């Protein structure tokens, strides 16, 4: 199952023919989306670099873009897939890399079609930037594991069918060595999902309490004690997506600020003008940087600039939204709505300037803090020495917490 006999002979025209053949038998216009995606999965056109029978054809990864573009050209771009980002982006490559044949057969297809939603149970109150410090305990009991602990910052947990979960199975060895990775059924007894309210007033994320949750050993991904390595595979796939199309000049929050400037001359001052122009320049520089990265990827030369994109984006969002409030003056003292609720795909632009300001504060924390990203750039890109580590050779249970 892991070899791909067809892979070697596959090229772009061959893939385009396979797309045409699929569309021939399953007219996107009349076929239900989930059914169509199931057929696409079966045809190996979900992820062409995956093995045959598991959504792919064992083709080179770069050819996926050809397939996506071809479906797009033919007018079939699946919709409503925002909730699948963890399943598609993080769970799937991890299951492919570490799952048993049974696990791959069970999870990949419904994950792809959108029938099953996934979430990620990684971060804990005591393990944020330092994920390897996590303390959620899994204790073996025959053929099952009994899990107790608390996870935070889990988006989609309230809608998810399954979770990828990292636990501590051996507290007596150094922290990177005593972890084990599981698939967790979110409907299992003892899984308690509670909304986590943010400073914006709403709850995009959840806390998940795990109390004596029993997970069959058959849902373990990778070997016992190998959880850190499995989790690294998951996290390597968590990156800023670089889209296939160039972004236009003056997109994102700078457009909001520029619009206020253009339409509200009474708010203008010389100092705010200079501040706005500085941010306009920064935003355009960030856009061109992303565009350059996109061009690099398109010719197969991915650069390290990707690791900086999120970092630059979060700083810009924070500065622009801060200026937006100052520019508005009196209106900047107001807020639209503090109601405690779960947002469903609300765009930033639809909310008030105060929300822009507050929500953007999370950009430099979620998905890797700016401090950690700076470390990564310094060490992996510039080759500067790592921090002196005091936690490498100490049993997890003996670490200060």
């Amino acid at each position, binding site marked *: 199952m892991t070899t791909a006999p067809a892979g070697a002979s596959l090229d772009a025209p061959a893939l385009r023919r396979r797309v045409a053949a699929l569309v021939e038998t399953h007219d996107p216009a009349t076929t239900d989306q989930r059914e169509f995606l199931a057929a696409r999965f079966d045809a190996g056109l979900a992820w062409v670099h995956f093995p045959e029978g598991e959504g792919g054809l064992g083709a080179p990864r770069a050819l996926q873009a050809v397939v996506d573009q071809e479906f797009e050209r033919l007018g079939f771009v699946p919709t409503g897939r925002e909730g699948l980002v963890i399943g598609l982006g993080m769970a799937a490559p991890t299951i492919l890399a570490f799952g048993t044949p049974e696990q791959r057969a069970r999870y990949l297809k419904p994950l792809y079609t959108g029938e099953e939603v996934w979430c990620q149970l990684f*971060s804990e109150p005591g393990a944020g930037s330092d994920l390897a410090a996590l303390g959620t305990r899994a204790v073996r009991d025959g053929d099952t594991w009994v899990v107790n602990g608390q996870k*935070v910052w889990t988006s989609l947990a309230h809608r998810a069918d399954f979770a990828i979960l990292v636990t501590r199975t051996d507290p007596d060895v150094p922290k990177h060595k005593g972890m084990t990775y599981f698939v967790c059924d979110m409907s299992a007894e003892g899984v308690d999902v509670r909304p986590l309210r*943010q*400073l914006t007033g709403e709850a995009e994320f959840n806390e998940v309490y795990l109390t004596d949750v029993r997970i069959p050993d058959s849902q373990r991904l990778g070997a016992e004690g190998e959880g850190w390595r499995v989790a690294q595979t998951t996290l390597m796939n968590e990156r800023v997506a670089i889209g296939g199309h160039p972004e236009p000049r003056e997109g994102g929050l700078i457009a909001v600020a520029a619009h206020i400037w253009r339409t509200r001359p009474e708010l203008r001052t010389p100092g705010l003008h200079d501040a706005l122009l500085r941010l306009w320049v920064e935003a355009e520089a960030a856009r061109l940087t992303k565009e350059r990265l996109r061009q690099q990827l398109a010719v197969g030369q991915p650069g390290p600039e990707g690791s900086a994109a999120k970092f630059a984006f979060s700083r810009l969002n924070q500065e622009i939204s801060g200026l937006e409030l100052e520019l508005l003056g*009196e209106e900047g003292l107001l807020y639209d*709505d*503090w109601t405690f609720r779960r947002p469903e795909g609300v765009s930033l632009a639809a909310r008030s300037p105060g929300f822009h300001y507050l929500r953007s504060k*999370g950009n430099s924390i979620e998905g890797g803090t*700016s401090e950690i990203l700076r470390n990564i750039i310094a060490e992996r890109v510039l080759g500067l020495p790592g921090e002196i580590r*005091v936690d490498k050779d100490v049993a997890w249970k003996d670490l200060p917490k």
Partner: protein
Amino acid sequence: MSEKRLDLLYTEVEQELRASVRSLLEDKSPPSAVLARVEGDQVTDTALWKELAGIGVAGLPVPEELGGAGASLRESAVVAEELGRSVAPVPFLGSAVLATAALLEAGAGDDVAALASGEAVGALAVPLATPPGAAFPEAVRAEDGALSGTVTGVVDAVAADVLVVPAAGPEGPGLYVVEAAAARVTPVVTLDLTRPLAEVAFDGSAARRVASGAAAQEALRRALVTGAALLSAEQLGVAEWALDTTVAYAKTRHQFGRPIGSFQAVKHRLADLWVAISQARAVVRSAASAAATARQDPGDAEAAREAEVNAALAQAFVSGVAVKAAEEAVQLHGGIGFTWEHPAHLFLKRAKSDSIALGTADRHRLALGRLVDLPAAGSD
């Protein structure tokens, strides 16, 4: 360019006042209580305000013969620092600072007594974002002893019994006193959860004029200058809370087997913040002293000018420090700092709103340019 030497230290009396206020606030209004309160219907903590008034806080710079404590704006600034440090939702800024200052500067001493004792709460009916140098407002018209018009964004109007209203009449600008009951006060949803604002509408509301013409303009201007100086003290308190809380967290929060405060980048950022805050403290003391000096001798034009320079300086400098401190507090707390349950956001929202209140730093820099002879481009 000349300037008086100002006392930039805290006197023993001021430190004792600080200790009483802090102790009361820690007892009655810890961050957890503020967080619970802002979710309720009535944000303003009137009971706490009465207690604060009980130790003289409502009438510090008011002469004893007008029912006040006979202290000065320096003492008010110390209280403002503590109120910033606790983001306590009391009508200090609206009543004890702005409305009181406007009445005192207008010579309406009789109207001050109720505010100074805390029996009544006052509010100055201008948008909170108004900078000291703004033109006299024309949103409200005065005609035959009655006011009509609407003022947006009035701080502490929700809790006010008495409104001090700048209004334009047939005879020019005037400053009026109106019972709050005679106006329609509508709360708005604010970014700063701990500081209610309201729209105040007058529709032929009965009003009593306490100053007119240039005197009204000057009283309003001086009240806003005083407000700017004392607001900077509040901002200093916000910044101090943010730094202290973050330093404490950095000492106990461990990641990678070490307190996060042992990482040099974190240390340097907190050191930078400490430097900025120690500078802010000097600037705030200077602004409070200059305001106190100008209040003491209303006829001293040089003192009035120094008060303006120092208030603009304080707003231009301390606004940014407070916002930076609150933003760093959220960031360096990581995930927990982004939650509703941790109080950091109350200070972030206060800091950002304060940076807009009584004029943004940008507008205060422009004002400074005029005051210290650094004219704008194209103004040769």
